[in-house]
């Protein structure tokens, strides 16, 4: 029977587009025949800001890219600057950096689980995720004074040392999380309705996943065993014992499970860091004061106002919770970067979505979209 297709405009204001994303769908009844993604509603010109601000001043702006997990953004930019200028980083600072980044991975995946389940109609999981996230955010608050926009990592180290009582609280958090994950798995993983909604939905095979530029957990759900922490170990990852979580199915459920596994792996990494954390400086002596004592807001980092790395270009990438996060920084020898380009994981992962959902239904689009785990601040920059 000949049927007329219907143009459905989903977004930019829609409950499950995770912000301001717009799908232009051509529907045959409930079946998606064509899917176009329109982005850019949250474009703030972050790359242009990069050219206008000094190397130090740009760090707070990177917090606002992927605001669910801002620490890796901080680090990815700082890493690029460090590679450009050849700055040494003390061991303790590296450990603290990895600690905060892995903690952020846990947070990101908790929010992912919550919002995915919320997209599917189960509204309880997001509250559980946020309940545990709150504990982690309080750790961050005690560490750097902010809960989401940290501005904590500096070229040459970190802003401040860990506060008193941080490690015991972190241990408590890890212990608590290990128990809570069991709860989540019982609540979600075996649920038949959840399986019905996730299995064989939004399938993408390994080759396509790579070709479409997917990275991170979304790609590892398709059976590609690649993790930048393993491929090009940065910071102290070569000293740590962890594995890149991987599933073969390539469907939404696989992508979900990869992230649940990653929470466990991250907790495992955190435990190792707590054991191994060395003593020493938290910032390269050239870029910091000797630590002040006493006062709670004692500042230990002092970045020189005239910081001019030599002319050059660098592309440096890390494994952010959402995928490969890269910063291309070009310097022309002045105090400001000549060009900053952000390769954001959300942006590139989104390219593959239309490929996944053609021929499926609207609820499947929501489910597949939820498992790609994007943040609009990261997509639009």
């Amino acid at each position, binding site marked *: 029977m000949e049927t007329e297709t*219907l143009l*459905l405009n989903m977004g930019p204001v*829609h*409950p*499950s587009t995770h912000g301001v994303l717009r799908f232009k769908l051509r529907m045959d009844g*409930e079946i998606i025949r064509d899917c176009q993604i329109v982005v850019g509603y949250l474009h703030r010109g972050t790359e242009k800001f990069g050219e206008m601000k000094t190397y130090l001043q740009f760090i707070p702006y990177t917090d606002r890219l992927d605001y669910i997990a801002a620490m890796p953004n901080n680090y990815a930019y700082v890493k690029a600057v460090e590679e450009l200028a050849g700055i040494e980083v003390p061991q303790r600072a590296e450990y603290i950096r990895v600690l905060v980044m892995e903690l952020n991975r846990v947070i990101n995946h908790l929010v992912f689980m919550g919002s995915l*389940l*919320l*997209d*599917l*109609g*189960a*509204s*309880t999981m997001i*509250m*559980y995720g946020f*309940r545990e996230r709150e504990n982690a955010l309080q750790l961050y608050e005690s560490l750097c004074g902010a809960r989401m926009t940290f501005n904590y990592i500096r070229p040459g180290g970190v802003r401040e040392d860990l506060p008193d009582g941080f490690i015991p609280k972190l241990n408590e958090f890890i212990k608590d999380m290990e128990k809570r994950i069991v709860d989540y798995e019982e*609540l979600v993983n075996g*649920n038949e*309705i*959840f399986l*019905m*909604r996730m299995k064989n939905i939004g399938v993408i095979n390994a080759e396509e996943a790579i070709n479409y530029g997917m990275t991170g957990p979304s790609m590892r759900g398709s059976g590609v065993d690649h993790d930048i922490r393993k491929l090009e170990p940065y910071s102290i990852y070569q000293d740590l014992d962890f594995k890149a979580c991987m599933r073969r199915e390539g469907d939404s459920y696989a992508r979900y499970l990869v992230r649940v596994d990653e929470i466990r792996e991250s907790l495992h990494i955190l435990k190792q860091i707590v054991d191994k954390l060395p003593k020493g400086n938290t910032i390269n002596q050239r870029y910091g004061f000797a630590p002040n004592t006493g006062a709670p807001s004692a500042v230990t980092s002092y970045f020189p106002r005239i910081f001019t790395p030599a002319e050059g270009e660098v592309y440096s990438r890390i494994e952010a919770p959402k995928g490969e996060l890269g910063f291309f920084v070009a310097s022309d020898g002045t105090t400001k970067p000549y060009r900053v380009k952000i390769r954001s994981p959300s942006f590139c992962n989104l390219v593959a979505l239309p490929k996944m959902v053609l021929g499926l*239904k*609207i*609820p*499947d689009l*929501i489910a597949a979209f939820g498992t790609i785990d994007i943040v609009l601040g990261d997509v639009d920059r």
Partner: protein
Amino acid sequence: MITNPNAYDLIIAILNAIGVYNIILGFFQDQGMEYVLRIIIVLVEVAVVVVFALVTVMFLSWLERKMFAVVQSRYGPMVTGPRGLFQPIADGIKLLGKEDIIPAKADRWIFTLAPFIVFVSVLLVFIPLPFGESLILSDLRVGLLYIIAISAITPVSILLAGWASNNKYSLMGAIRAVAQDISYTIPLAITAIAVVVFVGSLSTVDIVNAQQGYWFGFIPKWFIFLQPLGFILFLIACIAEMGRIPFDFQESEQELVAGFFTEYSGMKFAMFFLAEYAHLFAVSGIIVTIFLGGWTGPAIPLIPIQITSLIYFMIKTYAVIFFAMWLRDTVPRVRIDQLLHLGWKIMIPLALLNLLFAAFLVTFVVTAGVR
């Protein structure tokens, strides 16, 4: 034919007990307007039911939010009244104060009419619902059939609302609601028929009366024990009929924004809201009536059976409502085609099988025991 006593008889009995009935009746008879008295009593009944429904709806919306909050480690509404009990009233006042928007391209008449049809059709279900011994508005001889027929009006009005809104999301929500309702009324009716086979009557009061007493002295003669499969099917069909998670396609917030009432605001929105919770109560009451023994329960000395039966009915109904809310807090939503698949390919065959089983039981096993 002997009809079961209903609320009309009860009111007259109460008036008699106080000793004023004859005086009032005499007054009206003098005027030659006996029918006016009948109308007044019926209007009183209707007023009681409407007020009861509204209060229940408010309480249920509070309960739902509170349940949600407790499950999610939160407090829920706390400020308005003791533990936030008056929050629904505050919400109602807020909704009354909202601008009543009718979209420019909407069909004005149908758009305005639809919420009222939904609400009235839900209220009509209360008529043959036995709240307790003789606490029933009217014991229709075709009570069960009537309930199924009336609940078929709801999707029609939802379709009206969705169509009149002139919004693609509303239309899709409405189409889903109708598809869902058609496919779930059938197993609903078939499982209900299985119970009717035991009772031999469509009257809700007869169904409850058939469940009085005990087997072996301690197992109540509820149909849930004779028809466990029927109960599960009926429960699933009812949740689908109510349009609650996991089967809330008519709204399905994350997919269709708010489904058929996307365009509604203010009091019209409140009407849908009221209808939803009134429906929840009514359908839970039906489940209790058919499978959980209705208002039956051990008699307590010194307290009139009308009161104890009402209490038993409420306890059971709220247990069912609690289960529906508990389920909503836990599970995600099914996909629409999966739901239809479940309805047509699994539930209808199972319901038919269950009917066959019931007929077998009636014919060969418990003919004497239950009837």
